[in-house]
């Protein structure tokens, strides 16, 4: 195999949000940029992805995208036979039953890409490895709030909280720049949070008008407009809560044509894929970057960061042609500045793999031993219910409105914060609190066709059909399904996770088809976060009551490895992954190199020409979806790279 050598000014590993934004800004300035992408190139169109999605029997977030999760035999492909693998929602479940000799799916490295065999609980979030990164994002772009940057100062260090080295003011300008680049639709007043001033200057306007609310948003907003302060005391806010505002959420979805992309037509498919790219994804910026002269090299997996005299001297890579490998070549990329933008799991994996012939046994940029630690997500508390009247879900973007005002308050010294996200997609996520029987509309349809009750709704209480487990044909079937499916709703509570050094990414003994060690995950949920679930549960009960949703279809199975109980609450909990992989190479002040990996510019404390970007740098995670914040941080890092490049080149 011949060795390849690439030279440039700035080498970027990963072409997702952070990598694409940085590549574009630098190449606009005439800086020579090369991006290494582990997966396939930008596709000429979405036809192949849409085809895979339509064909998929489980329409999970990864379903449109390569590599295939299943082999031709219909069984999970062994991740050891995949060149650039990635986790799948289909391999985060499963439970061990009495007599089983094999581990459950989520703990079986022969089925699951992430080795979780030693983890306490499953880490359920997934990501993609292809040009443009994780396109299966919701498109929601709320900002963090000022206190999210100073958790230790405001709410104490008891729960592992630390302060960011920067504050909201330092990033505000870059939020605006990111909102422009991604193309965010919102009304500023909807994004303001009561009691939190100064988030937006009076003159600020988003690029496009807001996305209009769904029928469900309108209903919930109406029902929560008048509350008894006694009923909401449990929220622990510093004010009586006599109403909860349902507001249109900012989103990188076009509400009108923007930058040659059309307006959203409500495909109800933000995750896994917007068929018309009305929702921003990084291939848009990536294409601009390559138009500006950046070079994208795909099917190319960075395998080791090499050091010389305290600086990164080059990054080794392997190439492959076929999805299943083997490696077909390799080489090194040499640059003045290196940016690793490979997400919260692959970035620490690369750093930890970089042993430099034993000279860096703990990996590169890891004198603090913090690389890979503090893995966080926003564990999702999901609930499903049935309304007395139709609100016609399965229409519009997946989420159009939310309740954001509970994301900060004095309660945060005691329990995790959360937001409330209202779903427009009925029970498609999963039915019955676990993906066990599949998703709707399939499960409910199947129940009424086949006389079963896996959905829980084929009972006389809901149907009035004079009996349970009814099997129907003809107009009885259309009437029943039309009625029940159009009354479904979903509410999710994404809950803050506090940093825990033992929630971490390490290197597994299991490898991929390139022979590289795969990520090993250790993950659990703290009591602080569980107390957030408890408060979310109380709010859920209140909202269900206000909606007159008499039955809660949320359910955690006894053998669910994610399930847990909370004293005094008559519900067994489980959580979903939000797809927010955060915290694994956190930022800190220049004076804190022992407790953090990068400084406020996302530059390694250890190596002045190495930048680590993406949500892995978040020291704490708040409750906002991380994409906008990581994009703003990436744009902020551009300034530092531009400033330091001349001296680093010499």
């Amino acid at each position, binding site marked *: 195999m*011949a060795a*390849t050598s*690439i*030279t440039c000014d700035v080498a970027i590993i990963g072409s997702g949000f952070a990598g694409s934004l940085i590549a574009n800004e630098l*190449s606009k300035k005439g800086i*020579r940029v*090369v991006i290494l992408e582990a997966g*396939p190139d930008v*596709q000429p169109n979405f*036809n*192949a992805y*849409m*085809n895979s999605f339509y*064909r998929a*029997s*489980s329409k999970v977030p990864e379903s449109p995208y*390569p590599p295939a999760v299943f082999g031709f035999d219909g069984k999970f492909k062994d991740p050891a036979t995949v060149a650039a693998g990635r986790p799948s929602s289909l391999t985060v479940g499963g439970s061990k039953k009495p007599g089983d000799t094999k581990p459950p799916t989520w703990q079986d490295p022969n089925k699951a890409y992430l080795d979780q065999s030693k983890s306490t609980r499953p880490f359920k979030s997934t990501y993609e490895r292809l040009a443009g990164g994780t396109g299966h994002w919701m498109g929601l772009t709320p900002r963090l709030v000022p206190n999210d940057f100073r958790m230790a100062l405001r709410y104490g260090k008891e729960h592992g909280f630390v302060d960011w080295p920067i504050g909201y003011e330092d990033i505000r300008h870059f939020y605006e720049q990111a909102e422009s680049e991604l193309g965010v639709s919102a009304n500023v007043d909807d994004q303001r949070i009561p009691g939190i001033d100064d988030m937006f200057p009076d003159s600020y306007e988003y690029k496009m008008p807001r996305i*209009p*609310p*769904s*029928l469900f948003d309108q209903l919930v907003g109406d029902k929560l407009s008048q509350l008894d302060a006694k009923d909401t005391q449990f929220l622990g806010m510093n004010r009586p809560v006599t109403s909860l505002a349902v507001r249109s959420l900012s989103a990188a979805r076009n509400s009108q044509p923007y930058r040659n992309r059309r307006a*959203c*037509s*409500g*495909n*109800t*498919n933000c995750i896994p894929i917007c*068929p018309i790219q009305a929702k921003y994804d990084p291939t848009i910026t990536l294409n601009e970057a390559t138009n500006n*002269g*950046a*070079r994208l*090299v795909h*099917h190319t997996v960075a395998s080791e960061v090499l050091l010389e005299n305290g600086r990164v001297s080059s990054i080794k890579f392997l*190439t492959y*042609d076929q*999805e299943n490998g083997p490696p077909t*070549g390799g080489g090194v990329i040499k640059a003045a500045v290196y940016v690793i933008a490979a997400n919260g799991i692959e970035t620490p994996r690369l750093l930890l793999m970089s042993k430099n012939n034993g000279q860096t046994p703990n990996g590169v940029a890891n004198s603090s031993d913090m690389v890979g630690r503090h893995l966080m997500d926003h564990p999702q508390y999901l609930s499903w219910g049935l309304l007395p009247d*139709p609100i*016609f879900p*399965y*229409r*519009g*973007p997946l989420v159009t409105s939310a309740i954001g005002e509970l994301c900060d308050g004095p309660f945060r010294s005691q329990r995790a914060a959360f937001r409330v996200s209202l779903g427009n997609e009925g029970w498609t996520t999963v039915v019955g609190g676990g993906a*066990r029987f*599949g998703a709707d*509309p*399939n499960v409910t349809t*199947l129940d009424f*066709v*086949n006389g*079963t*009750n896996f959905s829980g709704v084929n009972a006389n209480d809901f149907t009035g059909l004079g009996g349970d487990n009814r099997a129907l*044909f*003809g*107009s*009885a*079937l259309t009437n029943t*399904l*039309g009625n029940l*499916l159009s009354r479904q709703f979903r509410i999710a509570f994404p809950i803050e996770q506090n940093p825990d050094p033992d929630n971490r990414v390490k290197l597994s003994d299991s490898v991929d088809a390139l022979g590289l060690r795969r990520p090993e995950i250790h993950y659990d949920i703290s009591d602080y976060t569980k107390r957030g679930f408890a408060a979310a549960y109380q709010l859920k009960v209140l909202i269900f009551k206000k909606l007159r949703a008499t039955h809660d279809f949320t359910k955690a199975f006894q053998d669910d490895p994610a399930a847990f109980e909370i004293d005094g609450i008559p519900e067994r909990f489980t959580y979903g992954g939000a797809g927010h992989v955060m915290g694994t190479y956190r930022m800190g002040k220049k004076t804190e190199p022992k407790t953090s990996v990068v400084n406020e510019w996302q530059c390694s404390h250890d190596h002045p020409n190495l930048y680590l970007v993406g949500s892995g740098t978040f020291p704490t995670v708040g409750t906002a979806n991380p994409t906008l914040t990581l994009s703003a941080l990436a744009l902020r890092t551009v300034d530092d790279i531009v400033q330091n490049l001349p001296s680093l080149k010499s």
Partner: protein
Amino acid sequence: MDHGRERSTGETGALVPISKISRRTMVAGTVATTVVAMLPLHNSVFAQAALPDKAKQDMMAFLILSVALTGVDISTLAPEFSRGTGDLVDADPGVDPFNIKQDYFDQLNGPGTAAVFTSLLNFVKKNPLVSQDDIIAKVNASDDTKFLARSIVLLWYLGSWYDPVDLKNAATSPESVDGPITQKVLSPKAYTQGLVWPIMGAHPMGYSNLQFGYWSRDPHDQNPDQKGNPVPLFNPAKPLR
């Protein structure tokens, strides 16, 4: 020089690709079906592929059966259906650009289900004007026909093939079911033509022909029909004569 691995419009460095990159197998041959699914109706090319008489009768029998089982009108199941003046089984099922009915017919007429399927078609051919209730009573009379009929409805509703054997197992011993019932999406076209979506006033996820903002309004047509009645969300079955 082989540029297969790189993509750039500018000269930014010395890249020497090592080997030729092969097209992903996923990309190959996947475009056609998506394109077909977006063609407008009334394309005369399709009308030429008319069926021979026996096949036409079988298709008509399948449609009569399907209308009764699905509760959806024949004008939705077979948009180019033409009643004519003869017997109902001799009417013209028509050929439309999607022609999903033929895909479903072929699936049902395949190994494992053809015999029971044929028996149902023969029943309808002998009794073409039988009421929809009587068709339902007929299929419910034996397990073989009942579970195949359920597979038929699931094809029309979801575009997915659920084997009648799996349906019978799930219905008779639900306690043994520990995961989703095995199903196969017949094709991208079948998914996008699923009837459960219009029945609930929606569209297949990932396949919207609607306009920005529709989701903030009730899906019902706000104008009544010519007789002043509200317009239903989908086209409910009318008796065939």
